[in-house]
């Protein structure tokens, strides 16, 4: 009997742990009673806290809301779509003025977005898109253009090797296979360099957006390809891992092998200052300010463009030192 009771307790504990992963939207503003005090109320359903980039994204939204005098109801979906749908339904019940969210996945949003539409609450997508056929379900999409980021990386490469006709061997570290940033950054880059036959991508493998994999794959590249001129990494973490591999192979990153990276995290700027990365194409998570502007416009009934791009830059070694102190993530 005692054993049986203990087993039930253990099972309850397991259930408790698993269900504790879902969180109810919590009010972080001064009041939880809708817009009774005249303040605009924004319900924001975040993906989760899976990376430093995402944490910076969350922080930016929180700070911008406070600065703009907008009451923020924030929900963390822990990378699960059902949590996010639940959070959006709660926002609808609480009658917020506007809902913003970064969809965990692309599909399966029609029902809940229709509920929001019927309740007359405008929806703004941030950072990631949905593949819904009915475009009236959301007002605008604020986020980075990953294809453009790939193109920027390609443009830098073309400019760097302007005037030479020698072949340039490029190796590519792709992001997680099938993810939108990986697909688009690859496509954008290939699109720009295909115009010149001297550029040749000799190897392209996934590094899963992580430092450990980036290093492991780069180490294999260095052994199977004698003359690598350029490394193009789909994010900074993979580039930072690969730099270690290049150094261990007795070569100088940034000189013997030029390094192009995307994202713009602080560590990458440090590496750029040390001349180990040549160029970083920014993928900016700090979209809070732009989001608050859009939210105000949408609620006021003003027209907004269907697609708003986040302000992003391209940073080279010369600008790294100046930009480093201002990097927030």
């Amino acid at each position, binding site marked *: 009997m005692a054993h049986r009771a203990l087993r039930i307790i253990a*099972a309850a504990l397991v259930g408790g742990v698993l269900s504790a992963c879902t969180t109810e939207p919590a009010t972080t503003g001064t009041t939880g009673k809708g817009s009774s005090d005249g303040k605009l109320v924004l319900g924001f359903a975040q993906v989760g806290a*899976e*990376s430093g980039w*995402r944490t910076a994204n969350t922080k930016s939204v929180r700070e911008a809301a406070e600065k703009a005098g907008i009451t923020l109801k924030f929900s963390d979906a822990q990378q699960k779509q059902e949590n996010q749908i639940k959070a959006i339904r709660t926002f609808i019940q609480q009658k917020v003025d506007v809902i913003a969210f970064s969809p965990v996945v692309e599909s399966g949003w029609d029902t809940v977005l229709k509920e929001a539409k019927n309740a007359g609450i405008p929806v703004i997508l941030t950072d990631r898109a949905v593949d819904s056929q009915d475009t009236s379900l959301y007002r605008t999409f604020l986020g980075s253009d990953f294809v453009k980021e790939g193109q920027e990386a390609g443009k830098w490469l073309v400019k760097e090797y302007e005037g030479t006709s020698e072949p340039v061997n490029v190796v590519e570290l792709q992001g997680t*296979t099938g993810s939108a940033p990986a697909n688009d950054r690859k496509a954008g880059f290939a699109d720009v360099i295909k115009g010149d036959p001297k550029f040749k991508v000799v190897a392209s493998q996934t590094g899963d957006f992580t430092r450990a994999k980036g*290093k*492991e794959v780069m180490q*294999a590249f260095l052994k199977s390809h004698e003359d690598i001129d350029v490394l193009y990494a789909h994010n900074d973490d993979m580039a930072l891992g690969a730099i*270690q591999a290049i150094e261990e192979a007795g070569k100088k990153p940034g000189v013997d092998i030029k390094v192009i990276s995307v994202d713009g995290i602080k560590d990458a700027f440090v590496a750029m200052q040390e001349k180990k990365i040549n160029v970083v194409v920014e993928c900016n998570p700090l979209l809070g300010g732009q989001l608050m502007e859009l939210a105000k416009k949408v609620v006021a009934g003003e027209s907004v463009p269907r697609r708003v791009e986040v302000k992003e830059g391209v940073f080279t070694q010369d600008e790294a030192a100046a930009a480093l102190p201002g990097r927030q993530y």
Partner: protein
Amino acid sequence: MTPPDDTGVGGRPARAPGARQLTEHRLFWPAAVLAALLLGNVALTHDFLAVRVQNGHLYGSLIDILQFGAPLILVSLGMTLVIATRGIDLSVGSTVAIAGALACEHIATAKDPGSLPTVMSAIALAVGVAAAIGLLNGFLVARLGVQPIVATLVLMVAGRGVAQLITDGQIISVSSSAYKMIGGGYWLTLPFAVLLAAALVAVTSLVTRRTALGMLIESVGGNPVASRLVGIRAAGLLVMVYVVSAVCAAVAGLMISSNVSSADGNNAGLWIELDAILAVVIGGTALTGGRFSLGGTVLGALIIQTLSTTIYTLGVPPETTLVFKALVVIVVCLVQSPAFRARLSRRRRATAPDRAPAAGDVGARQQEVHP
């Protein structure tokens, strides 16, 4: 119940000499697969096996395989013992992440990140917490009778959250040459991680094979009821194997984070539990518990790592990587299956009836002993 295994490491019957004896050795097929993978690489990349000295240490694809394989070998080592008791430990991937996060967080916040005492206390902290994780798993399994897959699932899910909590969702970078030694340093021209893994494998195999411990573990996994009746205290053994598994995972976590000088709570050791289980199975230890083979596990882990390196070297497109891996693993498992080999040799005999009958008959009869 495990079937009577007449191909054990120690007690091989001296029935047939020469080649047959060799193919009957339980390590033969994993070793053959590993050799085939390496030879396949040499055929496609001619200097694949070339090792040269670079910056005072050995440098080459083989060294890479050993270095990146070291964490997997360690995790699989602990997993082998757990599986031998008819259990499974799904929490090792999270333990890898927690250990790396704890050590890096400790070093990053220390006043003197490069000093040996700081690194030593970081290691002690990581290993200590891992031991506590192992104790919890062991307690759930041995004392509360929770099924191992459920008991360790708790920490597999929650543990990664704990790692993220420690790192605050960020990737923590450390610059400590002493810490870098564990996973990325070299000693006597060899990667330190490889030496460390080899030492731990040697100690584990000594302790399990030179004392009765290994046999006790096998008997608990093979037949819990019978071993209870002969007076083996299963609970203590169970707790012990989960602690060993967690500690092995912690050392692997230190290696992984040290190699890239950073801790990534989200991705460190992600899915390594599945690779480890695969390594154990490829190495010839059955998931049903009982007989285990540490040598087979080491070969299994090396096969998996060689496969990854092969994929990078050959340039298999990322979209087809998983299919390629799956095909190789299926082939490996089929080659290892006595039932499959028996069927294959029977078919071969049917198509070539004039083949010398004696040897084939012995083979078929012998192989049919296996399930």
